[in-house]
């Protein structure tokens, strides 16, 4: 643990950036001509989705490093990243569903590729936790979870293609969401939101990691004392 702990600084930065993001997204950015007010959901929904992908990717990266080199530290890091990914994945589904309701009047649409992809990933990563909690703690559990995390990132592109292929024969009706013709202001707002949400995820990750590491240390201490 670095003596110059930057977590408080990052947390305050995240708070400030989020505040700025909300102002930009809800007030400063011009209203979309085609979709109206509901398009503003996009400013949070898409960064949340991208952040979820990032978290799953980082979880898999830490998992790969664990298989390479081992170490409880990487196991906790991988686990925490996947935890964050699942949280943001759930948020993607909820905000996406709200946006679908606002745009098309339905809470769910199987032709929305992103929503379906996140459903599959959400189910996959929920199973990660079931798996993790059903195995005895130890090196074996670390490795099994790491392998599962790797399967997760392989699943992302494969599922994406599968869902696109599936739409050929599942849903003839296609809801098109005209890609926002973004003005410069809109794009800037989007970038700020992306930075804010990513930073938020990172801060949450760091906080959780501290909690988990402390937990592990306390358990070790308890064993030594009793």
């Amino acid at each position, binding site marked *: 643990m670095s003596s110059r702990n930057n977590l408080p600084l990052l947390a305050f930065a995240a708070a400030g950036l989020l505040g700025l993001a909300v102002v930009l997204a809800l007030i400063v950015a011009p209203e979309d001509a085609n979709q109206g007010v509901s398009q503003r959901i996009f400013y949070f929904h898409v960064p949340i989705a991208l952040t979820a992908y990032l978290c799953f990717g980082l979880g898999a990266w830490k998992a790969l490093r664990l*298989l390479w080199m081992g170490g409880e530290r990487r196991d906790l890091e991988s686990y925490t990243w996947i935890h964050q990914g699942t949280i943001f994945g759930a948020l993607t589904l909820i905000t996406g569903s709200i946006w679908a309701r606002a745009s098309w009047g339905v809470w769910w649409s199987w032709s929305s590729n992103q929503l379906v992809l996140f459903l599959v990933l959400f189910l996959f990563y929920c*199973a990660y936790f079931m798996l993790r909690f*059903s195995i005895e703690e130890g090196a074996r559990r670390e490795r099994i979870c790491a392998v599962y995390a*790797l*399967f997760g990132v392989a699943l992302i592109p494969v599922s994406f293609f599968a869902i696109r292929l599936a739409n050929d024969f599942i849903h003839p009706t296609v809801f098109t969401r005209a890609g926002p013709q973004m003005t410069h202001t809109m794009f800037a707002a989007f970038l700020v939101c992306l930075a804010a949400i990513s930073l938020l995820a990172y801060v949450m990750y760091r906080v959780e990691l501290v909690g988990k590491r402390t937990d592990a240390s306390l358990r070790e201490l308890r064993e030594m004392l009793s």
Partner: protein
Amino acid sequence: MSTLGLYAADVVALARKDLKLELRARDTLPAMLLFVLSTLAVFHFALPAGAGESAAYGLLWIAIIFTALLGLARAWAPEREGGALDGLVLAPCDRSAIWLGKSLATLAFLTAAELVAIPAFALFFAPVDLVAVAGVVLASIGICAVGSLLAAMAAASRGREVILPLLFLPLAIPLVVGGVGAGISPQGSTYLSFLGLYDLVFAILAWATFEYVVTE
């Protein structure tokens, strides 16, 4: 003998062991055959009148997936209960050979079940063309490759039989898409290529990571 030859010999030996065990015990394969036929029968009553062939194809794949789950769970049961997995791991062979041997044995069982299921399906519901059968073959490879690894993970867990389906179903979704698409879509070959891609990616991943799953 070259390393590849030795490896192949290990794989064959492991697969044969499982097949022989089954031949003697005769519990997994009959269960799978009966299960797939019963499921198809249930599906007849589950389908509303006038449902198209497409719906029926979907149900065929549900039947295949769940029959495969049955086979996978039983395939790893001896190791799980008898603790024989540790013995296998101590054997002087490449760990991934264990995975390949198990996958081949499970594939054999699954293929046997499909040899019954597909004609039955054609009889009860809708005709099955060559592309659809190719889809079944390709998807079965994927099912056994991924399923064997996941079943090894499940064998290490305290969770009961439910953990394997939980792990397997999300990964099986692309396979179902590919299989059903191969059956009903006019561009069946796209789906076959997709299934091939899935098999390649996940078989390599499973082969490379299996030893980490089974080592203590």
